[in-house]
């Protein structure tokens, strides 16, 4: 025997019986996530009606009805994400000072757990022409006659607001509570007012967290599907890209084309996420704790 056995050498690398426990899970992910993905990429390059390998992609980008869905989705997802985040930050800053946050956070977690289908169903009644929303605005004299808020852009916008704001808020709150309050107290002791404390102490510490929150909120809004069908105008301005992918795959039974659209959808989203996370590196990244190290 020269040197340690193979088993010992592998164990030194971190490979032993315990490591093998990862195998069933890994195999599962390879079978149900990686393989379908690779299969999908290959499938999208083999158009149903024959033709060149990029036929599906060429078809998508030459049909305004199809490539327009990217703009439609962006036009919904980006404003909603910005509005959600713009509201979430000040509210989270207030709530952080609250002693009993539990009731509020529990109420806000409701729409997230109930999901978009339920929210869409509720909004159809609530925002309808004789729903409570319009009736209240008329009662207060803000409106003269009901405005149309369902089966158009604003219905989908409202549904993304109802599910997206709590999501952005709860994430932001978890980041803000991760910042040591001693840092704020130190800034206040040195004479910084509320505005300065926010702009010069909190914001730089929060930017990485806000970037992640923005990405996760955007991912959710970008994937909007049931509410765009139920509350929107699925043939018109809220024909989002997931509707296009679903229709191609399951209504026209062209899984090759449907997969191609689904991959385009993932690609567009990835570009936005990478851009946001890339911009994050221009800001401070480091500990938000008050102690050393």
């Amino acid at each position, binding site marked *: 025997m020269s040197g340690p056995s193979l088993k010992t050498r592998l164990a030194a690398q971190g490979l032993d019986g315990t490591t093998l426990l990862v195998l069933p899970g890994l195999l599962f992910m390879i079978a149900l996530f990686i393989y379908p993905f690779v299969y999908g990429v290959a499938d999208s390059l083999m158009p149903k009606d024959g033709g060149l390998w990029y036929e599906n992609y060429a078809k998508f980008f030459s049909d305004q009805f199809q490539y327009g869905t990217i703009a439609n989705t962006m036009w919904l997802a980006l404003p909603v994400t910005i509005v959600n985040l713009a509201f979430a930050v*000040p509210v989270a800053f207030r709530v952080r000072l609250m002693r009993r946050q539990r009731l509020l956070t529990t109420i806000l977690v409701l729409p997230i757990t109930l999901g978009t289908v339920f929210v869409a169903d509720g909004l159809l009644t609530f925002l309808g022409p004789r729903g409570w929303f319009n009736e209240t605005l008329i009662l207060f004299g803000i409106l003269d006659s009901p405005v149309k808020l369902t089966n158009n852009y604003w219905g989908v916008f409202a549904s993304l607001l109802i599910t997206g704001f709590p999501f952005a808020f709860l994430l932001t709150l978890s980041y803000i509570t991760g910042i040591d309050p001693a840092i704020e107290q130190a800034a206040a002791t040195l004479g910084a007012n509320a505005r300065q404390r926010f702009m010069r102490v909190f914001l730089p510490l929060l930017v990485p967290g806000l970037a992640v929150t923005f990405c996760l909120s955007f991912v959710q809004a970008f994937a909007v599907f049931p509410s765009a069908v139920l509350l929107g105008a699925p043939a018109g301005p809220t024909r989002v890209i997931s509707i296009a992918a679903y229709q191609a795959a399951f209504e026209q039974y062209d899984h090759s084309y449907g997969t191609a659209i689904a991959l385009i959808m993932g690609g567009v989203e990835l570009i936005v996420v990478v851009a946001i996370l890339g911009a994050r590196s221009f800001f401070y990244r480091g500990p938000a704790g008050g102690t050393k190290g």
Partner: protein
Amino acid sequence: MIRDQGLTSKIWRIAVWALATLFVLNLLAVIAAVIVNSFATRWLGTWLPRGWTDRWYFSAWNEFQLSSVVIVTFEMAFVVVLISGILGVMTAYALARRDFPGKRAIILLFLLPLLIPPLTYGIPLATVLYQLGLGGTFWGVVLINLVPSFPFVVLVMIPFIEQIDPRIEAAARVFGAGTTSLFIRILLPLLLPGMLAALLLVLVRTLAMFELTFLIAGPQTQTLVVSLYYAVFASGVRAGQSIDAMAVIYMVTTLFWLIIALQFVNPTQIVARAKQQSAH
């Protein structure tokens, strides 16, 4: 905490609270609208319905064949929870305890299903499952739901297992515990709180998971949320109150588990999953 007393900060404070209150009121009104409508005899153009009735619940239960839908929903959700629990804890244990080449890549692989829109991986996966003859079957629905829920359990459990001191396991070994008794008598009791929280969250998420189930479910394997979607989609065919009665039934089943889950987890944890991994 520091509280400012100036006028501008007072106005700012009131504005922020007004905004938050307005949102919560609208949110509660949306839920209330569904509940009120489900008990209404007729509700057109008035603040509250003319009369109250519970007959929509009986008609919804029969029209939408809810007894079989509810059974399928729970069977599916519990199987998903069971499998993702067993697989997830095993995988998380290996990832938490050992450092080996390729570990970062594996963790990234578990993060991907939570970052990619469900339809992007759902459509190719559903295509594969249909070609295997699993389309519309119970196991097809289970498999497609495992793709987001199993990695979720892994990512929740890794930090939880990391904070259990490995010396406890070493001590048990010294005193002669075999692998089985080590697992049953040492690890399981220590892991139980974290597992319970993770699995309850998976249960709530699976009950509400629409997109993936929708792609694969057949007429006999629809879950509650998918049936609800079809009902709202074809509204006009059935009475709106009947659809809303079904929505309330769906809400009750989901909220029941949410309330139990909230005994073990903080509401922020429901969204702040996998934060440590994605925030680095």
